[in-house]
């Protein structure tokens, strides 16, 4: 149910387990402090699979796959990625050609360009972000071993399917407004 309290906290979760999406908070580039994340510099090009156990900040080029499921992945403003990305929090400020999966969130900042599908329980699209693809906010972390083109399966609440709205049953009507 919608309560007044919800108005003051638009990201508050509800008893029904609905997913929430925060409003974009900042258009500033997310540059990690030294030592906070591994950084792939502007002059670096990597072809192959990137895995690891720390956060990653990309200013260079990567072709292949990026799999840091438990950590943050940030494609900086000068980053160019041609790869599927898996991370806990994925933030795109540069260009990505590939699917992006975030266990918690995927954020496309204002100057980003993404050509691929996004799967995450929360998605942030800032004004100016260029995005070609589909979004699946299934409310469940992406599962392993699925084909990339398939969306994740949502764990649905154990309730009956929603019935058709009562005012929409039994007759066809037309109104001029």
């Amino acid at each position: 149910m919608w309560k007044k309290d919800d108005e003051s906290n638009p990201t508050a979760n509800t008893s029904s387990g609905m997913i929430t999406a925060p409003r974009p908070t900042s258009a500033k580039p997310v540059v990690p402090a030294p030592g906070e994340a591994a950084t792939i510099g502007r002059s670096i090009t990597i072809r192959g699979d990137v895995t690891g156990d720390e956060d990653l900040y990309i200013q260079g080029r990567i072709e292949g796959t990026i799999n840091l499921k438990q950590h943050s992945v940030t494609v900086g403003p000068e980053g160019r990625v041609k790869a599927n990305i898996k991370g806990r929090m994925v933030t795109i400020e540069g260009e990505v050609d590939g699917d992006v999966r975030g266990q918690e969130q995927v954020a496309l900042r204002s100057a980003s360009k993404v050509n691929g599908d996004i799967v995450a329980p929360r998605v942030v699209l800032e004004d100016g972000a260029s995005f070609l693809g589909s979004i699946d906010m299934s409310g469940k972390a992406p599962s392993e071993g699925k084909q990339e083109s398939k969306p994740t399966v949502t764990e649905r609440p154990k309730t009956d399917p929603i019935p058709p709205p009562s005012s929409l049953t039994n007759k066809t009507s037309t109104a001029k407004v």
Partner: protein
Amino acid sequence: MRWLRKSQAVPLTALKTPAELTERDESPTVHDSPALTEIFGNLDTDRPVRVLDLGPALQTNLDFYTKIANGVRIVPLQRNDGLEGLQQLDAEAFAARLDRLLPIGDDAFGLVLMWDLLNYLVDEQPSLLAHHLAAVAERGASIYVMIFTAGTMPREPSRYELLAGGRLAYRPTTRRRTAAPDPPPAKVERWIKPFRVERSFLLRHGVREFIAVNA
């Protein structure tokens, strides 16, 4: 509007008011949407549905869906090759694209927003799309369809942003226009079978909104 007045109505606090649209919004046209008002006003937030949006992804709409849904998919069918590429697909290729983008067998959707896409599909595409949507939607799921019935329409599908007060901002993605298809309602009903039209609203600016239910 009822979807704001009802205590159990979906919360629209994250939505912009028409006055909050920015210069970046390219002077959108804002209209009331009685069909969406009715659809959202009748949703039960205790039973959130999965929402399928066949338009482009917009943050405001995502914010809104997350408050009414337990799952959201945004699937613009034209994707990389644009409207022209979509229209050039024959029946087999069109069906293959639907299978790839909207696999049957995943959890069913309770609400489908087709927006104005139907105006731009050709030949068998409307019927193929409707049958595929019926297969990925729950029985009783609602679908929202807009048809241009007068004058001209943009040559490509527009972007539609849900606003507070049961209003919609229309943002054409091109300045080029073409004649509105103006199909008779009976033809629309044939296009979207097996969905059954329950209500339609003819708006002053020539758009007819349809609410149909997956029968």
